[in-house]
């Protein structure tokens, strides 16, 4: 049971236009059966700080030379070592930044309170829980201004693709599309976007009063953008929508180019793949020219090897973060569990070959070793919203696809070309209900390694 806030707590200040739009989002004829209430909890002073953050996002994009952390990192690391209980255990004394130990999701999962700086007031603490499909369930401590800071980053991501998220009174700025058995759904308005509307909706028919209501509601909203994951966008594309968004923002799962292309054609707009995680928010956006651009001005990204040593530019390793904009979770060499290469394009650090899960090797029927990237490349032209591939100890492969996906035979043929004609391959349906977080896409039994 969630303890509800009062309207005044959700909206410390609210305009008449904002109130009317909020009422419309809740009471319009085709609105979904929302099961939750939620608001930005942003004060006027907090809004001022978010606008200042936007200016920083625009004016100070992340830049550094290979192996040279930006100037703020040394001071930030000193703050963490002095003020944050978890990092204080590393001990005192002068240290080279690259010599600091890395921490990981398991550390955060065990004691999230140990990452809160000593002087951080607890009044505005909010707690997000993640389902932990990639490993450890997690409680992420956060702040309303951190949640609101997502929007300047979203704007920066869109600007990379020539799209402007305008917001404005009476306008629905964004719909977050879900397609799963159940999830929190709610509608709200954003003071940052002049009280433009936002709603998180679930395309599961059980969430709507009539069979056509989802499409009617979305068309009535005419949102500027949609956010969601590939699976929910695949469901969205099947609705008879007439509204034309400015962009789709894909998060949470790998977006394959095939689906990206079909979604872009369906909606007549760019489909942006983003790299985002609960611990750090929106980190990067795929660039039209390739690779992921980094968005946060105070988030230093390293690629580390297994021994916490920085990899050379272009060498694949684990994405590791320092900084961020969450006062309850200052990240100091935080291993994300995601893998990529860090490359520099005209001085701009970018993530290349991003895979949101540990790399997995597979063995072909003839004994060759394949990287999971090889599988991604082989399947990239299929409009697959989601899939998993597992190799058992005896080498047999199990590919799981959405139950209603029609191109099974073509996928089988592609995988057999990659693994060899003699490869044992079973294709199964993904379990009912969409996954609610990152999917562990490639796995294998240890004995097969």
């Amino acid at each position: 049971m969630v303890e509800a806030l009062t309207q005044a707590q959700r909206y410390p200040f609210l305009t008449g236009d904002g109130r009317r739009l909020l009422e419309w989002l809740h009471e319009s004829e085709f609105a979904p059966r929302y099961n939750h209430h939620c608001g930005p909890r942003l004060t006027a002073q907090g809004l001022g700080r978010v606008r200042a953050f936007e200016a920083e996002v625009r004016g100070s994009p992340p830049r550094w030379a290979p192996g040279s952390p930006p100037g703020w990192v040394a001071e930030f690391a000193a703050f963490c070592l002095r003020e944050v209980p978890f990092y204080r255990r590393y001990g005192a004394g002068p240290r080279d930044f690259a010599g600091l130990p890395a921490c990981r999701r398991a550390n955060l999962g065990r004691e999230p309170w140990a990452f809160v700086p000593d002087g951080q007031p607890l009044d505005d603490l909010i707690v997000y829980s993640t389902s932990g499909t990639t490993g450890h369930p997690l409680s992420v401590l956060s702040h309303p201004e951190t949640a609101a800071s997502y929007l300047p980053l979203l704007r920066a991501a869109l600007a990379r693709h020539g799209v402007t998220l305008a917001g404005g009174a009476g306008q629905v700025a964004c719909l977050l599309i879900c397609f799963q058995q159940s999830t929190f759904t709610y509608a709200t308005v954003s003071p940052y976007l002049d009280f433009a509307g936002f709603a998180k909706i679930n395309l599961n028919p059980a969430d709507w009063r009539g069979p056509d209501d989802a499409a009617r509601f979305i068309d009535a909203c005419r949102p500027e953008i949609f956010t969601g994951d590939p699976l929910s966008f695949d469901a969205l594309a099947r609705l008879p929508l007439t509204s034309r968004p400015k962009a789709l923002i894909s998060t949470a799962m790998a977006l394959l180019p095939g689906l990206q292309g079909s979604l872009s054609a369906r909606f007549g707009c760019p489909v942006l793949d983003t790299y985002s995680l609960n611990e750090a928010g929106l980190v990067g956006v795929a660039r039209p020219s390739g690779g992921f651009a980094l968005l946060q001005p105070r988030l230093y990204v390293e690629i580390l090897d297994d021994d916490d040593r920085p990899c050379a530019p272009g060498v694949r390793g684990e994405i590791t973060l320092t900084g961020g904009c969450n006062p309850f979770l200052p990240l100091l060499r935080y291993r994300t569990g995601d893998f990529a290469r860090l490359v520099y394009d005209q001085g701009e650090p970018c993530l290349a070959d991003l895979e949101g899960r540990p790399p997995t090797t597979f063995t072909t029927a003839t004994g060759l070793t394949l990287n999971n990237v090889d599988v991604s490349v082989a399947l990239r032209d299929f409009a697959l919203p989601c899939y998993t591939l597992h190799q058992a100890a005896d080498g047999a492969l199990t590919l799981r696809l959405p139950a209603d996906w029609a191109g099974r035979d073509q996928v089988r043929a592609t995988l057999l070309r990659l693994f060899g004609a003699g490869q044992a391959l079973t294709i199964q349906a993904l379990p009912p209900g969409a996954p609610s977080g990152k999917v562990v896409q490639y796995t294998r039994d240890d004995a097969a390694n």
Partner: protein
Amino acid sequence: MEAGPQLEVLTRRLAECPPDFLAEPRRGGAGVVQVAAVVADLLADWSAPALTPAQAAAFQAAASQAKVNWLRLVLLACWLWHDPWFVRRAPSAQAALTCLSKDLAGLAKLVPAPQCVLDPDRREELARLCLKGLGLHPEGETPAQAQDRLNALDSVERQRVIEAARSAEARSRAVREAMAAKAAQEAADKWSRE
């Protein structure tokens, strides 16, 4: 930092401290020892300039028990520094006065002065503090070894660590309680999946 006398010489000297140096400091009509006079005698033996009136006033006993304990530690330090090794070398009087007013003031809040005679660890702590205050380390030790050993004995540092640990535990409990309360409360909107 230079080498001083052997540590054992100093701890033995403390253990053999005459009762006069353990007597009650004079305050008002009570007490026996004029601490300012004892400090003045030490400086004279070191051929150092005499105490100014303001410096001497600092060694007048006041009513608080902590101040009295500090004055007792001052007497013990003066006894220690009367050792011939120091008298022959006449160390810096200013350094000695700083050590008395700062280092011993911290110790006085935590350790009763008689312990610095009766307890071997506290004897060693006082001896090391008095050496360090003059920029010296025990003969036969490196400066780093001397600092490590003093850190291990340091009552002030130990108390700081205990209080820091207590404070950290209280803070950790407060954050956990806030987490439990806020986890049951609706959060703030999020505009995408992560």
